């Protein structure tokens, strides 16, 4: 097993290299770069002198050099831990990411815990009560959750919260707390905002997990071994949880490979819509503004979390299924 994990880790390195290269060059593809966007914006605001500084600006930011040269500078700096500086707010990329990491992880891990923690038991209930009232109600709910994107659900909640209390729950804190230290009051304030995004994201996530769990449970329940278990006189609880559920976990574990990436970069549009101070909203704006070092660093972070997540899910599969383990 250890050898297997080691092998997988080694394979990750060329994969990561490839992602960095492809990602970097895709960011060079648009005809405009950060500077031309900046100059155009300044021009719109009546600042015509910016046009004269265009080349100088490009030199300062190093954007005048050929892409291949810049890639290698960026690449080796990256390995040394220097992830570059954001063009937009002139701060190190690492600072920006670290600053946004706690809020991102708080929202996404809460959403993850709720969607999986609620979705799985409801999916099992739905499957074991197929076509009964409870299942029909849950299935209806799940279709709504799958059909509506989470940012739309978030906007419904936003409007509902405004109509109910007159509060506009954008962001993750009231204005007076945004730069305050993390006291109990700020934490309470955080939750009074965070419930909205967490519930919206968790609702759609839960709907998906519930459907996947239900479908797999139903598929497993139809298999011949279930009849054997019942014919042996095992209590139904044991049949369901010890046997059927464990067999039905397979696709959920595969999905679990995406969870790490979700924690960093799930619900990007919801983040933008609700103006959440998370990594994904800065990733979106950095991509639009061609703030390439910031966008590139986040891209690599996502790539690493996807690869590590898949490795974890493969290890979990081997633990779960002896047929994988003994191959």
């Amino acid at each position, binding site marked *: 097993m250890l050898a297997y994990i080691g092998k997988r880790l080694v394979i990750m390195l060329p994969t990561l290299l490839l992602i960095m290269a492809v990602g970097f060059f895709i960011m060079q593809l648009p005809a405009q770069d950060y500077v031309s966007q900046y100059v155009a914006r300044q021009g719109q605001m009546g600042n015509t002198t910016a046009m004269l500084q265009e080349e100088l600006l490009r030199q300062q930011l190093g954007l005048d050099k050929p892409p291949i040269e810049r890639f290698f500078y960026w690449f080796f700096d990256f390995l040394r831990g220097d992830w570059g500086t954001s063009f937009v707010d002139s701060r190190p990329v690492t600072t920006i990411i670290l600053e946004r990491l706690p809020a991102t992880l708080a929202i996404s891990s809460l959403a993850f815990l709720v969607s999986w923690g609620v979705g799985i038991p409801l999916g099992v209930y739905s499957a074991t009560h197929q076509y009964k009232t409870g299942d029909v109600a849950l299935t209806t709910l799940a279709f709504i959750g799958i059909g509506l994107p989470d940012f739309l659900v978030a906007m419904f909640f936003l409007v509902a919260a405004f109509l109910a209390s007159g509060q506009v729950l954008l962001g993750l804190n009231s204005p007076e707390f945004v730069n305050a230290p993390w006291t109990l009051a700020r934490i309470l304030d955080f939750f009074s905002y965070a419930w909205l995004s967490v519930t919206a994201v968790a609702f759609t996530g839960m709907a998906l997990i519930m459907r996947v769990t239900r479908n797999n449970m139903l598929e497993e329940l139809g*298999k011949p071994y279930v009849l054997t278990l019942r014919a*042996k*006189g095992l209590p*139904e609880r044991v049949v369901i949880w010890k046997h059927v559920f464990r067999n039905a976990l397979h696709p959920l574990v595969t999905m679990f490979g995406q969870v790490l990436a979700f924690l960093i970069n799930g619900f990007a549009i919801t983040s933008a819509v609700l103006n959440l101070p998370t990594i994904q909203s800065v990733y979106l704006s950095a991509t639009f503004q061609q703030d390439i070092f910031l966008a590139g660093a986040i891209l690599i972070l996502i790539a690493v979390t996807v690869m590590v997540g898949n490795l974890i899910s493969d290890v979990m599969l081997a633990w779960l299924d002896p047929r994988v383990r003994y191959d």
Partner: protein
Amino acid sequence: MSVETTPLISVEGLVTEFRTEGGLVRAVNGIDFTIPRGGTLAVLGESGCGKSVTGLSLLNLIRPPGAIAGGRITYYGMEGGKPVEITSLPPTSEAMRKLRGSEIGMIFQEPMTSFDPLYTVGEQIIETLMAHKRGLSRAAARAQAIEMLAKVRLPSPEILVDRYPHQLSGGMRQRVMIAMALSCGPKLLIAEEPTTALDVTTESQILDLLQNLQQELGMAVMFITHDLAVASEMADEVVVMYLGYVVERGPVEDVLNNPSHPYTQALLESVPRLDADSKERLRTIEGMVPTPDQMPRGCPFHTRCRHFMPGICDTALPPLYAAGPDHEARCVLVAPDFAKEPA
């Protein structure tokens, strides 16, 4: 009735139905039979005739959209001799669960898919033992599981106990299946096509094993099969089923040597024979088994019968007529007064 004179299990007028989109389908249509203690009954028929559903009905394992809709199944094997009416127990009840596996065991056709692939075969025997024997420790259950594996003549049972199903061959898996079904000492074993998925040499080994174990443990066996050779080798009595009806029943030599129902006759003729002239074509039964939602009127077999008599066979369901001592067939050709009528 004293214990000695009662059968082990009796089935009277059993009706098992399934609710489908095309309406209610009767998979089992009022069948009767008994199995004596230690005896062997073969239930014979093509696929779709209701023999598997009959087996599952005995364990009360018919689940929605199916249900036992009528009749009575009575089990007389309980300690103390008190009869238990299986059909009056709810399928999900604790009393029914306790009967399954401990009083009535069952083995299935497909030894590959009949095990949970995620647990060792030992664990699957151990959990059976622990579900039925109060206060049995894990270690003791494991020792008993190894003992059972030895009893079904598996080599090095103490190693096999920790193997997963996919690591065993089909024949070994079926032996484990038998060990598991017999681990709690049931008095009745329902064997549903236990050798159909195996090759011929393995099949005869498994059949020998079952016969030896039956003698050793004194249990009764209900053998569900489509294979006449298997039925004649294993059974004392045979029940031939067609479309949910019993069409013929009797002692196995009688029925197979002297079949009275055209369906049984046709089944026997469609068995390939080694000594037959190779140019002679194998006889098959005309047509297909009608789907249960197109149940023919009258005799269920009349649509495929060589002796079909319009106006007689397609009007009323014939009763079971005596065809010999303890031998009955559901066909007007066997009716005592039939020969007198002009055909």
